[in-house]
């Protein structure tokens, strides 16, 4: 109850209740999923939206065949309408195309960020939980220090050192969110390590790395992945904030944050330039958060 009290922005520590594998036929499971989703239209919308965003990130041309950097100056600053669903920007580039293609850059950065946080944080937590003693103490104090510095400032310090660009922004965001992963991973490792079957395994002389691979990692994976989904939403926000501040890819790359920044010059006359990319960010984060809530307990409690 002291300096190290800290909650992820969602206010709940994920992984408290994890989907316990229920032995069931695939058919039964599918029926359960159907019932689960039927009562949750918001979740369905979220899943569909995230699926679309993923398609946009990996094969943007499927959703928007045009070139996001090629504009027709004669068609500039057209309001959303039939020809251009989300309007055009100051060089006559299609805003919809730019938002769709921007998804790939922005999500790429987000995936890198979460991966960095997961790997680094996971390793710290694993090491702390598995080795224990002074290693645990030292590593967890270090994590406390990371928590004492607001994430965006830590990211900005890293950007100062690394320089600008999408990947560097992603790494900076990832390092700044290492702490939560380290804590969850450590808690899980401790829990598993103390459980009877691990004690049993050890007593029969199983080597430590076997224990790690067979017992600790598979059991810790669930809560850590739930956290990863939650952190994904936060990372989108962090990455787009930094790209809004101008530390992302140079022009004309259509990162979501920099699209909003570009639109600021046209705030008074062409509202869609700011509003649309921001809406894409907000909708993605909301959807991801909704899914993470579903994974975190809601599914397990459902019967």
């Amino acid at each position, binding site marked *: *109850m*002291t*300096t*190290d*009290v*800290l*909650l992820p*922005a*969602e*206010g*709940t520590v994920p992984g408290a209740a994890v989907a316990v594998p229920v032995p069931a036929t695939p058919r039964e499971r599918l029926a359960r999923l159907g019932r689960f989703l039927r009562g949750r239209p918001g979740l369905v919308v979220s899943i569909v939206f995230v699926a679309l965003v993923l398609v946009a990130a990996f094969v943007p041309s499927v959703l928007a065949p045009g070139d996001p950097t090629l504009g027709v100056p004669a068609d500039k600053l057209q309001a959303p309408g039939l020809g251009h669903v989300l309007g055009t920007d100051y060089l006559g580039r299609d805003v919809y195309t730019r938002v769709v293609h921007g998804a790939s850059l922005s999500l790429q950065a987000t995936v890198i960020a979460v991966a960095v946080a997961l790997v680094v944080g996971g390793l710290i937590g694993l090491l702390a939980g598995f080795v224990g003693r002074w290693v645990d103490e030292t590593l967890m*104090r*270090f994590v*406390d*220090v*990371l928590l*004492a*510095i*607001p*994430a*965006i*400032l*830590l990211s*900005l*310090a*890293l*950007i*100062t*050192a*690394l*320089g*600008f*660009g999408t990947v560097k922004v992603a790494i900076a965001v990832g390092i700044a969110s290492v702490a939560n992963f380290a804590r969850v991973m450590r808690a899980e490792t401790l829990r598993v390590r103390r459980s009877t079957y691990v004690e049993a395994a050890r007593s029969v002389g199983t080597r430590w790395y076997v224990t790690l691979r067979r017992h600790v990692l598979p059991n810790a994976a669930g809560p850590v992945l739930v956290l990863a989904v939650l952190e994904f*939403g936060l990372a989108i*926000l962090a990455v*787009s*904030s930094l790209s*809004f*501040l*101008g*530390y992302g890819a*140079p022009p004309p790359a259509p990162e979501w*944050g920099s699209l*909003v920044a570009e*639109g*600021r010059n046209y*705030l*008074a006359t062409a*509202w869609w330039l*700011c*509003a649309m990319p*921001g809406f894409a*960010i*907000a909708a993605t*984060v*909301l959807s991801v*958060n909704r899914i993470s*809530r579903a994974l975190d307990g809601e599914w397990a409690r459902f019967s």
Partner: protein
Amino acid sequence: MAVYLLRRVALAVGVLWAAYTVSFVVLYLLPGDPVATMAAGGSDGEPVSPAQLDALRARYGLDQPLITQYGTKLWAALHGDFGTSFATGRDVRGAIGDALPPTLQIALSGLLVAIVFGSAVALVATYTRVRWLRQVLMGLPSLAVSLPVFWVGLMLVQLFSFRLGLLPSVGARGPEALVLPAITLGLPTGALIAQVLAKSMSQVLDEPYVTTARAKGVGEAGVHLRHALGNAVIPALTVLGYVVGNLLAGSVVVETVFTRPGLGRLTVSSVGVQDIPVVQGIVVFAALVFVLVNLVVDLVYPVLDPRITTGAAV
């Protein structure tokens, strides 16, 4: 009590020292050559001449071995000296001191918005019996933390300044100019407060003494305000450090959006020109604020909640 206090203070100093060290490692060790980094100023430019680099290095003491640099800088930092800005040649402490008052202004008004918004949402959500209202209210926090702060600010400017002409869009003149930045800054923090408060309120409402009060005929509003809120606030206090850190970090974006002076703008411009001493000063300052707030909370906590005995430290 004295032992408890000493322990807390020692812990705070330790965290602060570690924060300084982490920022030193990140800023001076990570770039490989901080001088080349600063001379390039952001994106990859063409290389600077070796002679120029040497001159810069000597000027900022970066020609010394790293451990010497660390020692000298830490010693100076202990005396409140964070060096001089690479970009402007200004004393870092002075630069932060000058930027602080306007940031305090929006941080405090943001905190006010956050507390009002957060506790109103938590109170009404736990009080109301109307199912849909409860759902909408409990949904608000997760909405508020999902919206990009910079975008919310711009949309507020568009609506209230440009369309309705009610509030000024930019600048730092007059109390009206504080309204939109305070709302932008306060919303996500308020959401956090609402979540924490609602959670601890619903826990408190299940406690036996609340049930007793209800049985004695205390009205539902009375139970909420007199018994539950007071006790629910105590655990919520523990996130205060995080809340203040949030506000400080939020100023980076909010000051940029509303073109206000302050710590956030100083941060953005310093990162832009890779002004390492200023960035480090700001990072350590943020950690200092976090540590101080938590220290105060730690010291006040046992006074507020008699169930905590000072011997038990976690």
